[in-house]
């Protein structure tokens, strides 16, 4: 099926270190992560923080892109509703992610792999706790194999040819 099929989830699970991508809003969550750092709060080094001007900047397609490129879990985090630096950005984030998170689940992606959280600049401990829990959860379910674009499942041209041939026949029979 794929050129990665030799490496199954179980083979690598033993010393698997999850890669977690955090989209952090500049004004709250990024400051929260910074506070966690300056307060010397420990969390596993599995997170990559990507700073965005506002949680609302996170196009849901960025999340899917991250999974395509081999990330195992994605956290989208911003200011609490009412606290957005741009007043209303995170209300839009909330609507979008309420929907897209449900869609990801509908596509068969484990909901443990994607989260949206409000983490303020004062919530260093919350940042530590959310990412630590997420890392442990993702570690337990293993590497993400879904949506990965290096696991090229190519288009089955035989099926397409067969269906075009069938259609052509229907057309030929009808004229």
């Amino acid at each position, binding site marked *: 099926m794929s050129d990665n099929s030799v490496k199954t989830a179980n083979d690598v699970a033993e010393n698997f270190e999850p890669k977690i991508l955090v989209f952090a809003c500049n004004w709250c969550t990024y400051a929260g992560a910074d506070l966690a750092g300056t307060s010397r709060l420990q969390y596993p080094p599995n997170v990559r923080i990507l700073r965005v001007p506002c949680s609302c900047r996170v196009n849901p397609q960025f999340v899917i892109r991250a999974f395509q490129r081999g990330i195992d879990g994605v956290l989208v985090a911003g200011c609490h509703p009412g606290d957005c630096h741009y007043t209303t950005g995170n209300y839009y984030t*909330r609507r979008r992610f309420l929907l897209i998170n449900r*869609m990801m689940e*509908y596509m*068969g992606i484990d909901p443990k792999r994607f989260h949206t959280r409000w983490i303020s600049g004062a919530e260093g401990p919350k940042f530590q706790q959310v990412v630590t829990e997420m890392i442990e959860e993702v570690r337990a379910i293993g590497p993400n194999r879904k*949506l990965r*674009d290096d696991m090229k499942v190519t*288009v089955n041209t035989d099926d397409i040819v067969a269906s075009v041939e069938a259609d052509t026949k229907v057309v030929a029979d009808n004229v």
Partner: protein
Amino acid sequence: MSNAFVYNFDQVQNEMRAMAKELLESGEATMVIGWEKGALPYQSTPVMIRSAEDVDKLIWDAYCQQNLSTYLIDYIYTDEKVAIFAKGCDTRAYNRLIQDNRIKAEKCIVIGVPCPGMKNAREAARLPENAEVPMANACKECRYPNPVVFDKRVGTDVTAWCTERDFSDVEAIEAMPADDKYAFWQSQYTKCIRCYACRNICPACNCTSCIFDQSASGWCSKDINASENQFYGVTRAFHVAGRCIECGQCEMVCPSEVPIMLMNKKFIKDIDSLFGAHEAGLDTNTPAPLSHFSVSDPEEFM
């Protein structure tokens, strides 16, 4: 659904031709967009008519499913005054385009045509001649067969045959284990050939420049494989979420029979339950669910 049998297509067709003739002769319209008979019995294709002599090309039958409103976009920067025939769904598409600021009402004449429900052309192609052809999937669940907005109209109103959408297909997928869901969507999206027919026909997908035409964005690609096709499918569904008028055209034109409406309906179902019932394109004032918000939206991210 029995409307189809008492509905008199020929009579409405005569009214359509007379209306088109009148509009073109008087100069009220410079062009009329309707349907003409295609090469096969189950094909009725769009036709642009500019001369009153040609109005007899116009037909009205059970295969006029194609939504004509999207063609209006092509004439927004011309001096044309375009009249279109519009079924219930076409009028909702028209409202959609007005609301997206893609067409101007003063350049269009909408001629409403109450619709008895169209037949499933794809099934018709497979069934033996003279077999009873089922109604198109989208039409089965249509709640607005009569035009919701119009400048002129032909025919008489029909009674809607459906009052509520049927989400059982979406629920069936929701109930599947995660790996089965994923396998199902993979099997569907390996069929996609990225022809973009679903995008091109869609009255909600009306962007002046589509992200899928921009190969250098760095985060969306033109590669054809299950992963990128699925990225395309879900992105497009998300872009039309809350604006999809459920005409079913995307699924109908897909050469690979990807069940696109299963994605669209999932968003519709979730929007209704999270943010309150919404019907796209019924008017031009109600904002689309993703273009506004409420401070009392459900909170799941604390």
